[in-house]
């Protein structure tokens, strides 16, 4: 009888402890969640903006490139 009382006491303590371990993180997570928050989102992958094919050449670089061109 005494053995069963001890077993009952420890079983109850285990149940109490484990149920709190199960419930407390759930409640903590729910309490910290903002109102209106979204659970999961997947978006289109953003690609790098396409480069323009048009090249900009400065007037100085043209003069520099043509400086050795003696034919004018």
């Amino acid at each position: 009888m005494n053995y069963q009382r001890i077993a009952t006491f420890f079983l109850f303590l285990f149940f109490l402890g484990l149920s709190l371990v199960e419930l407390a993180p759930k409640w903590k997570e729910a309490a910290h969640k903002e109102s209106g928050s979204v659970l999961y989102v997947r978006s289109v992958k953003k690609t790098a903006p396409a480069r323009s094919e048009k090249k900009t050449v400065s007037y100085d670089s043209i003069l520099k490139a043509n400086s050795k061109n003696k034919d004018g």
Partner: protein
Amino acid sequence: MRKLTFERAAAILSLLVLVLAWAGGRARVEESASARILNISNDITNISPVSENLYRAEKRSTPGAPLHIALESRPSYGGPLSVAVVADEAGVVQQVAILHSTDTSTYLSKVVESGILDPFPGSRLNALPVVDAISGATISSTAILEGIQRAGAHIATARQGNPAPISKTSSPLNRKDVIKSMAVVLLFGCALCVAGRRFPWSKKKGRYALMAVSTLVLGFLYGTQFSLASMHLLISGGWMQGLASYAALICLVLAIAVFFMTRKNLYCATLCPFGAVQEGLGRITGCSPPKRTPWMTWTARLITLMALSAALFFQNPSKASFEPFGMAFNFTGSDALFAMTIVIVIGSLMVKRPWCRLFCPVTGLFDYLGFVRNQWTRFQRNKSPKETS
């Protein structure tokens, strides 16, 4: 007399706590749909409603570029699951999101981590990819896929007056759930028959036979056992918004109805698969039931009340469940539930039905219902002599 007064006060107080938690939860979730849409992406601005569950917005990065947003809810395991689809003017899906779910978070994260949402962004509304449901979490994944298909079709209809084809969706009541529910009703019928006076054979043997069948059918085959989460669904009215499976709820309603009709808790005594497994283990050692002291009784009731209040406040039945039923029969659940199952298995060899007698929230629920029933009977008995005089 003093004990009775205390019990009456506790019964009224716990009812008050539940009502307050429910009211607080209602006030907490009364948020505008536009607040949720804004949380889908920083690129969404100027949201305006077009019709029910359909919105129009603009891209923040390219002002003037319109976006179409549709919300859709589908019945899932723990209640409705809400999704959103955002598409641009060309009909290309920009974002898909799961806004709200009452399913167990471990199931939902398993589904999302398997990549169920990944094929949708970048696809066209009129050619949404066909994705298979995830095995092991079929109900949740089907709810997500159906929700996205329907939301996509909703946008396509609104954009061009041109409905997109919706893939064939399962009806809320599928054949498997109907069979499950019928099995539950049949088992309750058998339990009433065995407990009845006219049962011709040994009641003890009949009860053991029923426990064995119930363990196989409700436990291992269907995993249909009501819990505190089912209680939350019943009292919060969550079942009215649609459920993928009503079998656990039917089980709860029948258990309460039979309890009020026969004054016997036939479910716990005869049909509960988890109780049957504990009793079977206890038969090996022939142990006797544990003696529950008052502080144990009231602590277990307090935990039950706290869990149910939390579920009502957070509007989510999964916040109430701490029972190891899923772990015992389907091996799904957290480490804490696994440890609890091991403790219960070992404990069942030392004392008879340790979980049922010491900590099961269903025991607390029937204690409460029994107390209310007795008080009501007493009230009626006291009332009738006055009326006759």
